[in-house]
């Protein structure tokens, strides 16, 4: 992986962010705004699966409403996160344990959300209200919290 991280830092994107006074801060602010959106879009569905919000609406209805915001915020996260990563790819993130853990949590959260949680939420109504769905919701909150905490941890490591 180290050649990739070195290439990324010396790429046009990495050097552009590095040479700008405000680019890093601006992408960071955008990343934080997308985090707020992802928080709401993930949480509202997980809370519904737990039966703690909108109990009169079907799980699938809440998940359908949240879906464009979930996908939009994930896209915004990548669009703002990749320039941040590129700027210090090898000189910081490659050796940063919190960054590494964040990437593991992110991969797990994305796979779990789109291959498990969305299927349960948008699928059969009985299953979407079952104990399995509640366990899925708890797992989703834990995985995404891991991404957030490790993301904040990058700066402290």
């Amino acid at each position, binding site marked *: 992986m180290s050649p990739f991280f070195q290439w990324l830092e010396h790429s046009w994107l990495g050097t552009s962010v590095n040479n700008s006074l405000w680019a890093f801060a601006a992408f960071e602010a955008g990343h*934080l705004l997308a985090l707020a959106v992802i928080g709401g879009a993930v*949480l509202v569905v997980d809370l519904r699966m737990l039966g703690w919000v909108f109990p009169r609406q079907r799980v699938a209805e809440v998940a359908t409403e949240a879906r464009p915001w979930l996908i939009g915020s994930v896209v915004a996260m990548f669009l703002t996160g990749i320039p941040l990563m590129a700027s210090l790819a090898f000189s910081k993130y490659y050796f940063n344990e919190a960054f590494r853990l964040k990437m593991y949590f992110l991969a797990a959260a994305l796979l779990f959300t789109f291959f498990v949680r969305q299927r349960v939420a948008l699928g059969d109504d009985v299953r979407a209200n079952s104990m399995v769905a509640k366990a899925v919701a708890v797992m989703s909150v834990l995985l995404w919290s891991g991404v957030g905490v490790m993301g904040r941890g990058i700066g402290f490591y």
Partner: protein
Amino acid sequence: MSTMLSFCQWLANTPFSSGIRESTYIYPVVESVHVLSLCMFIGLLLLWDLRLLGITLRRIAVSEVWARLIPWITVGAVLMVISGLLLFASDPVRFFGNIFFRVKAVGLFLALLNALAFHLGIERRIVEWDTSAITPRAAKFAGAASIALWAAIVVTGRFVAYNWFPPLV
């Protein structure tokens, strides 16, 4: 202003403040709580604001969206305020002198004002538009203003960490 500065200086010299400032773990933990509760508070508040704009959850009555979301928004808000006050207490003089912190404080005040204006204004006639997908102009304005103000609060909050400008005090 000098009274506020004196207060900040007094607070900075308390063992409470230096305890947070000098601890290896308290600051990172409190800041992580601040960021995670941001997701809960602003993320769910956004869904409410989008309902006021007539964009999401349009099939659910406005009053029901509010009633269902408000317990969670409140939990998020309480965590934000507690963690935010602790972060402020860790280094009050620096925050007080930071231009972005001051802009953020103004943003918070305006966001509260906007919520109050909504509560005293168009919310009083909510029975007339509660179940309609298309919301009145005043409700749309309140939703849009809330989104804009909270976005500005998040951005200026993040910028507090940068010392692009000399301290004001």
